[in-house]
């Protein structure tokens, strides 16, 4: 009887097998160049993660942030930027930007106080901009003091419809695409933190890049069927940022979903996803007839180009509830490596 009671008690009181507090000493300082991959994770499930890939050894390390810090990266790792030898990871639905040591992936600081951060762009050691969704303001932050110091309010934008996205800089001016239920490119004078001009493009410009000629590139997704905001053929735009005028518009078919405008290291070739992977000289007058890399029957979710050798890295989120896969191709379209990372790999950051 006593034995039965003992077994029953053990059975009833057995605890969960969590392992907490175990930090790992990671050191990737010897790897030289490398690629950080932000895996968004599932919205509202807090399972974002950070992966690291060494292009030389082709070694991949997953869950770097969790392993180094014994805590989760958070909910929806949106983007990562390197500035002054540190990595800055924007975790959208955790309302935080982590500052990490690039060699150890250890956190060295964080900025909070955002509504819903998306991207960070550094202007100096003491000033950076952070774009947001569900907020009609771009946050101004002091990376040194790790705090939000002010806001740039976007005109004709409500908080509910607020969406500022990627940023590129030319001289004293910063350019921002407004994406969700928006159609604008903003020009901000970084000296005064004021929006000095804006350009209306097509529906929902998703990304932004600046080529070697100082031209701005954006691609719209055209909205969706039934959207009250409109549904149109998407387009790729080459923009003169000085005059804020469209130099060339490359039209796609209605229903296409181009995204992820990226440039090579020389910034003379532009890449984007439109089912397949496409590449085009920044001086071209028409979109190529054939893609650079054919689709593998999946929805490509992220794209980056190795700034040194122009290898092409494509993220495949598969079913969005398992570890996604990265495909690495040469510039000529030869598959040379593939590896699994975290859930929904979406953003890349070259070290």
């Amino acid at each position, binding site marked *: 009887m006593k034995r039965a009671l003992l077994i029953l008690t053990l059975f009833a009181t057995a605890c969960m097998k969590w392992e907490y507090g175990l930090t790992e000493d990671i050191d990737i300082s010897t790897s030289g160049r490398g690629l950080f991959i932000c895996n968004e994770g599932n919205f509202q499930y807090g399972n974002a993660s950070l992966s690291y890939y060494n292009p030389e050894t082709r070694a991949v390390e997953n869950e770097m942030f969790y392993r180094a810090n014994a805590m989760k990266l958070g*909910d929806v790792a949106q983007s990562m930027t390197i500035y002054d030898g540190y990595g800055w990871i924007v975790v959208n639905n955790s309302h935080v930007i982590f500052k990490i040591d690039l060699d150890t992936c250890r956190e060295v600081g964080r900025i*909070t106080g955002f509504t819903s951060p998306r991207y960070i762009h550094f202007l100096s050691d003491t000033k950076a901009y952070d774009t947001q969704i569900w907020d009609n303001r771009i946050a101004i932050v002091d990376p040194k003091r790790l705090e939000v110091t002010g806001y740039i309010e976007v005109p004709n934008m409500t908080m*509910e419809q607020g969406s500022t996205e990627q940023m590129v800089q030319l001289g004293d001016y910063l350019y921002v695409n407004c994406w969700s239920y928006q159609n604008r490119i903003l020009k901000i004078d970084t000296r005064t933190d004021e929006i000095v001009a804006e350009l209306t493009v097509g529906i929902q410009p998703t990304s932004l890049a600046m080529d070697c000629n100082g031209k701005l590139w954006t691609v719209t997704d055209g909205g969706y069927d039934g959207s*009250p905001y409109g549904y149109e053929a998407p387009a790729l735009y080459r923009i003169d940022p000085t005059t804020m005028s469209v130099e060339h518009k490359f039209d796609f078919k209605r229903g296409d979903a181009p995204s992820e405008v990226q440039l090579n290291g020389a910034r003379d070739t532009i890449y984007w996803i439109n089912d397949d992977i496409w590449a085009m000289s920044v001086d071209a007058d028409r979109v190529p007839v054939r893609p650079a890399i054919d689709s593998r029957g999946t929805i490509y979710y992220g794209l980056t180009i190795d700034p040194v050798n122009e290898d092409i890295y494509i993220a495949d989120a598969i079913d*969005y509830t398992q570890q996604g896969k990265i495909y690495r191709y040469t510039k000529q379209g030869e598959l040379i490596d593939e590896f699994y990372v975290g859930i929904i790999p979406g953003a890349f950051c070259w070290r």
Partner: protein
Amino acid sequence: MRQLSVILILLLSSVAAWAQEDIIDIEEITVLGTRPIRDIGVQQTKIDSVALKENISLSMADVLTFNSSIFVKSYGRATLSTVSFRGTSPSHTQVTWNGMRINNPMLGSTDFSTIPSFFIDDATLLHGTSSVNETGGGLGGAVKLSTTPTDSEGFTLQYVQGVGSYMTFDEYLRLGWGNHRWHTSTRVALSTSRNDFRYTNRDKKLNIYDDEMNIISQYYPTERNRSGSWRDLHILQEAYCDIRQGDRIALRAWYTNSNRELAMLTTDYADDSDYDNRQREDTFRGVLSWDHLRSTWKMDANAGYIYTWLGYDYLRDPGNGTMSVMTRSRSRINTIYGDVKGEYYIGNKWLFTADIALYQHFVESRDKSIILQDGDRGIVGYSQARVELSGAVSAKWSPTDNIGLSLVLREELHGTRISPIIPALFVDALISKRGNITAKASVSRNYRTPSLNDLYFLPGGNPNLRSERGWSYDAGISFAVNNIERVKINGSATWFDSYISDWILWLPTPKGFFSPRNVKDVHAYGVELKAGLWCDMGKGWTMDVAANYSWTPSINCGEPMTPADRSVGKQLPYVPKHTATINGTLAWRGWSFQYKWCYYSKRYTMSSNDNTLTGQLPDYYMSNIALAKQLHFSWADLSIKGCINNLFDEEYLSVLARPMPGINFQLFVGITPKW
């Protein structure tokens, strides 16, 4: 033998006998475990009424967690809780309340956290194929909830008040009146809680900085559950009238007003005082029923109406002291319901049934308000109406006392979609009268039509979706021993096997938003075990123990979505392979001690079942205890009850990033005056 014959006659003629009584009790009487012809081959779990009325703070999600083997996925206290049978999804569980289906037509699923168990008098789980008797679309099964009249005459009153940890207060009042013809009942339940339980957040750390903003120390914070309060009000009005012999009219009306904050994730670094993240609901459900009973036939007619208003608001103070809207979502559902059922007995060997149910849904979803390109305002949302018809005929045949066969044919029309015939075949056999050893088996083909959000939600709704379809098989054996002095034992073992094709999943599109697609084929199979023991130990001591166990592999057996897809052959995410519950009560002279225990095995959070740091939720055990005392006076019955939940203060998660409370306490006092 003579006793068994009497029982059988009682059972088969119960309908006829009922018609001859002035006071009608339509509850089915289970006598010594014999098999009503209506339930031939049916695999069902009846939730004990004691479990339903155990304490006023419980929702049906709580009750099912500890009293059945089905999986309850809870996002927290008084937060979305869905149930799924046999490795299927929550939308494969159909739920009826007094015969009317109450699944949200936009989502297809039901939130069991919004159903107070004190408002339910009868709860039955119909596993797999057995749900076809009740409704279509229950690829996993169906949950049948109903209210019944009390049999007391004159005025009755019951009042219970509860107070619990985290400033949780519950109040329950039931007023009743009845005579030989009329019975009315009014129930009111009010539950409020700050729900700010403390927990150690191991998903994040807090930093301590020096003056140069260098981190000098980090620690896991002990936090309170942030933004998790609720206030739920339920009112249930019932009126029953026996208008003449064999006829009864019943009106049941249930109103719910719910105001719940949505708790912040464990990985959220925002200041909760800056945010208001809240879901509000107003729901009215009403059913008017007419039961008409004659010696060999019976007819029921029901008319009902459901109104649901759902509001979701996510607000933030941008720093100017006013809360600005980040998300303002509204949905309004009106459902009109009508149902006619008939039963016809030929002797005591045949029963024929037919029923046809009509639902007309009107749905309006307004998800976002935007400024259009031309400067006007626009709404992102949809407005749709859908008529749903479900009709079934069945023949049930009991050629001998020991064998029963039942065939159900159901047909459904949802909008313009006509399902193929939904057939279900049941067979059972009484193997041994001594011990009531009964074998049961069934097979069915079933379909589930996509929900309105699946079809029309903006953005992403996919009007080209196919219905999910499945084959279900089960076979089992049960026994019930009631003839041992002061001991009752029962048990059952059931094997089930089901294949579901065209499983609907919401997946991102190249445009970034999610859209549903028919992507998966799932093979769900396993075993369900149930056991019960009731024992009169003498000197006033009684013991009642019930246990459930289920083993539910639920395997993705479709084609890989891409060559990189590693989910094929793997267990579905968030479906535990093993679940078990034990519920025991020891009673003595008005005292009762209850012990509840449940177990969920490891759940994968990734479709590929990867063993990454966040790829799984560890298994957990949960133990609750309660001690109660009933006091009987000439003027009133009093009750007092103390509960300890999560007795061993276990740290556990049901869903990633959703904190759950540790050990917590409740105290209830109740009074039932005697007039």
